[in-house]
């Protein structure tokens, strides 16, 4: 049965080895499941969040994985709308990674809210002024788009192709993919932006608050920009990891280099915008609200190194690496650049979520720190494990890399 599901001509490892590979991830998923059960049953007191740290590990996770999952819409946009067909080699991976990231984020959010049974109130009693409403609507719609994009990949499975209706559906969906790529890009732009807007509109939290451009704060645009910078890098890293784990060549090297360079170009422009934004924030926004940026970087936990790290080590450095044509041809440089870019965007989301809550607003507030509880880590582990498991199953039973058959020179393990 297992063999019959695997695509013709693709070399996949034996079922027992595959199950062995899944085992640790299943254990992590079980940890996540146990944690989620506890949280649903007893409430959020199992976390280490409190009245000050209203947001914690999960919001950082959500923001980070949604930013990293941006490769799905951005590569779709590049492939179908900008007609850069070389990215078609990794597009299926991008769609699945995107699906994993977005569905994982929604599951985490469902655990994070205090009243999950009322989560649908975001639609029922929607407040159109709330950035979070915008996020909720766009993420939900975009997840549907991703699902639609995922379906044709699934329908190409060897067994499913024997069902006549499936083939027709797959063919029809495929024709519509341009439309979905367009819709997806539009939705994604909005929710990446509104996620940034969520922080930028906090006029009571000077650390996060940013001046508006049009009706949106600058973070709206910066979050889009940083997400599309990191998205291609993340897809590139994932592809490399898959190649490494399976010990197979799955895509042409030049595709990886172009992904890296795409990141580099976007990241360098992002960093310019980010620096400009930071300067305006320090010189105009904060004094206007009676604050001084130096105050925010005075604690043991968040020193000025935070800003330095974000702009240089996670900004300028990967940008210089990935912009260089020769360096992106060399795998170690590509990996370093890609990793720093991805980590940088996650770090940016961490800073916006946690430092915003950590720094004092009133003169008599204390700097506070927070460390997640076992259950919070459990949910994070569960989400990561869910992603790995879903991707592994997809890789085993679906044809994710169109060039795999031609490129295969060595025997794989997965």
């Amino acid at each position, binding site marked *: 049965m297992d063999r019959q599901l695997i695509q013709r001509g693709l070399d996949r490892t034996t079922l027992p080895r595959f199950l062995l590979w899944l085992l640790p991830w299943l254990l992590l998923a079980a940890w996540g499941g146990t944690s989620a059960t506890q949280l649903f049953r*007893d*409430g*959020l*007191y199992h976390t*280490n*969040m*409190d*009245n*000050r740290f*209203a*947001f914690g590990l999960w919001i950082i996770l959500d923001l980070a994985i949604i930013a990293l999952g941006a490769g799905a819409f951005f590569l779709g946009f590049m492939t179908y709308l900008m007609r850069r067909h070389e990215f078609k080699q990794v597009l299926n991976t991008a769609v699945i990674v995107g699906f994993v990231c977005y569905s994982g984020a929604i599951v985490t959010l469902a655990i*994070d*809210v*205090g*009243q*999950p049974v*009322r*989560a649908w*109130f*975001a639609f*029922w*009693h*929607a*407040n159109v*002024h*709330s*950035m*979070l*409403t915008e996020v*909720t609507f766009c993420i939900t719609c975009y997840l549907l788009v991703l699902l639609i994009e995922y379906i044709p990949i699934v329908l190409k499975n060897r067994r499913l192709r024997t069902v006549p209706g499936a083939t027709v559906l797959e063919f029809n969906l495929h024709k519509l993919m341009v439309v979905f790529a367009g819709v997806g890009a539009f939705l994604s732009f909005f929710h990446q932006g509104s996620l940034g807007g*969520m922080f930028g*509109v*906090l*006029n*009571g*939290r*000077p650390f996060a608050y940013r001046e508006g451009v049009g009706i949106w704060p600058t973070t709206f645009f910066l979050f889009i920009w940083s997400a599309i910078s990191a998205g291609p890098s993340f897809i590139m890293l994932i592809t490399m990891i898959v190649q490494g784990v399976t010990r197979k060549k799955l895509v042409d090297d030049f595709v990886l280099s172009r992904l890296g360079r795409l990141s580099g170009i976007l990241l360098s422009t992002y960093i310019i915008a980010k620096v400009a934004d930071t300067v305006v924030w320090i010189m105009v926004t904060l004094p*206007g*609200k*009676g*604050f*001084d940026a*130096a*105050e925010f970087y005075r604690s043991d936990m968040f020193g000025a190194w935070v800003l330095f790290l974000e702009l240089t080590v996670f900004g300028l450095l990967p940008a210089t690496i990935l912009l260089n044509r020769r360096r992106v041809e060399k795998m170690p440089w590509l990996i370093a650049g890609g990793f720093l870019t991805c980590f940088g965007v996650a770090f940016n989301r961490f800073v916006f979520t946690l430092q*915003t*809550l950590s720094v*004092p*607003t*009133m*003169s*008599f*507030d*204390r700097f*506070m720190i927070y460390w997640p509880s076992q259950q919070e880590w459990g949910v994070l582990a569960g989400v990561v494990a869910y992603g790995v498991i879903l991707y592994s199953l997809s890789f085993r039973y679906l044809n994710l890399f169109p060039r795999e058959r031609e490129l295969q020179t060595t025997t794989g393990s997965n």
Partner: protein
Amino acid sequence: METHSKATVCYAMVIDLDKCVGCGTCNVACAIENNVSVPPPEALENRGLTWMRTQRVDNGKAWPDHRTVTVPIPCQHCEHAPCIHVCPVTAVQLDESTGIIGQIPTRCMGCRYCMAACPYHARYFNWFDPKWPEGLQDTLNPDVAPRMRGVAEKCNFCHGRLDRARELAAAEGRPAAEPVHYTPACAEACPHGAITFGNRLEEGGPIAALEKKPEAFRLLEALGTAPKVTYLSREPWIRRIGLSRLDRVRGHGDGPEGA
């Protein structure tokens, strides 16, 4: 100060910090009036529900120059409330006819975005299932609905008492448009008369006069949230606690130690 063009009522509070001695009566009176639950003893710090938080603040100096003040911090009912526009489920609303920022716990889905938005930390989350020791629910106030776990809550200027006052006014046949006078629990209970509550739009009323005094200040005024809670003190160092941290440090030369 922005006011609502047609409204004749805008409730506001003035707290005289020179009269406050930090006894915490307002805090307890509020909890009793509004059925605020008590988290279990094993609850982490900073997981309490203190609609009227009483925070001790000092001048950062050592004995014998050390001075403290207790600042009661209810929801500031900002004119430009940072919490209203963030709520995805419209569970936070400004009542244009009273100026009160209301929280609808039965609609709140517990995303806590409003808590992240509030610079005064005046919003609280029900981390635990609100439980009362056996029989104690018999001492709950029927005018205020008890909340459930997983929702945010905060001061609403004793809306239950406002409703009672309106019922009374209606029973006495007074027109509905006429402003209603009432006293929130904290103002009633304060043994030192430090809390004044009333309609700031009332011509010649006590609130308007107190708000104009030179010793009046608000918390984080520069943020532009325009709180409806005003503080009074004749002590310059106490007036400085309303400023942001930096301004206060400049006024002192020494890092303040918040309580």
